[in-house]
């Protein structure tokens, strides 16, 4: 299949519905294996941090959630561009279905951040660059959710959400570089592309497993939400009717 035909097919929700099913199982099983291994390793076997003692173990759940919350937003930003430029149907469905997952991960990152902040910084919340920009990310998710509910015409809602998703992308580099600004208590990035982690392998390997695991979970969750959204929007079509009647939906 050439790239051009793939591009055209991605415009077809029916085609996407048919090819996506096995990927949910592949990604779901990978997510389960990676998350269980990473979590047990991080919780039971990883050595204690000399400064933060055992509270550093919150990192193994906090960091992956915070990373995937931002990545989910980036996915929406790209979907927004695809929708505005090429009017791709599937792009708007992505934009609609990423919101609940991204929102839940952002809330989780903020809550575990507070729970980690209390024993480490002595406060549940500080208005520093990283925490504030993550709060802005949460408000962007709220905004995208509310905007879709508020506009009755689906095409108008799709365009408005796409514009908000694209404009909100400005917050992503702000979150990323906020820990390098002066005004922060938040520790620096655990992983960077250019340098080796500042932790020993037995400490960062479980984190890497959980990060990969949560991305697989995101993939599986996005696909299953997308497939449901496809059924909802294509409800009146013959192919959905046939699929449902054959019992293989």
């Amino acid at each position: 299949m050439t790239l051009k035909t793939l591009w055209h097919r991605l415009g077809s929700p029916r085609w996407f519905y048919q090819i996506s099913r096995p990927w949910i199982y592949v990604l779901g099983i990978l997510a389960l294996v990676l998350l269980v291994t990473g979590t047990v390793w991080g919780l039971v076997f990883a050595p204690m941090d000399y400064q933060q003692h055992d509270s550093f173990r919150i990192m193994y759940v906090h960091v992956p959630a915070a990373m995937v919350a931002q990545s989910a937003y980036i996915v929406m930003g790209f979907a927004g561009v695809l929708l505005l430029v090429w009017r791709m149907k599937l792009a708007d469905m992505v934009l609609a279905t990423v919101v609940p997952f991204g929102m839940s991960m952002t809330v989780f990152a903020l809550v575990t951040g507070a729970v980690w902040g209390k024993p480490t910084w002595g406060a549940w919340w500080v208005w520093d660059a990283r925490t504030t920009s993550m709060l802005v990310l949460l408000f962007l998710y709220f905004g995208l959710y509310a905007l879709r509910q508020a506009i009755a015409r689906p095409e108008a809602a799709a365009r408005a959400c796409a514009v908000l998703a694209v404009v909100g992308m400005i917050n992503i580099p702000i979150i990323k570089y906020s820990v390098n600004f002066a005004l922060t208590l938040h520790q620096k990035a655990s992983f960077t592309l250019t340098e080796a982690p500042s932790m020993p392998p037995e400490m960062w390997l479980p984190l890497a497993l959980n990060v990969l695991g949560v991305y697989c979970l995101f993939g599986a969750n996005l696909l299953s939400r997308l497939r449901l959204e496809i059924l909802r929007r294509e409800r009146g079509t013959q192919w959905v009717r046939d699929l449902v009647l054959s019992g293989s939906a």
Partner: protein
Amino acid sequence: MSFDSFADFIAMGGHGFYVWFSYGASMLVVVANVVVVRRSRLRYIRELTDMARRQRNAEAVSHS
């Protein structure tokens, strides 16, 4: 293993509440995301099936 005893493991060096709260919440978020989609999918497919069956039966009646 990083702990000497099970009690040690639960205590997390005095940070037990913070650590266990975070891990408990992580389980909740993951399971909720999976279960919510699964349940609404099953419910919606049942609805669609009923609708399609009714429509098929109505067509069968009008043809006879």
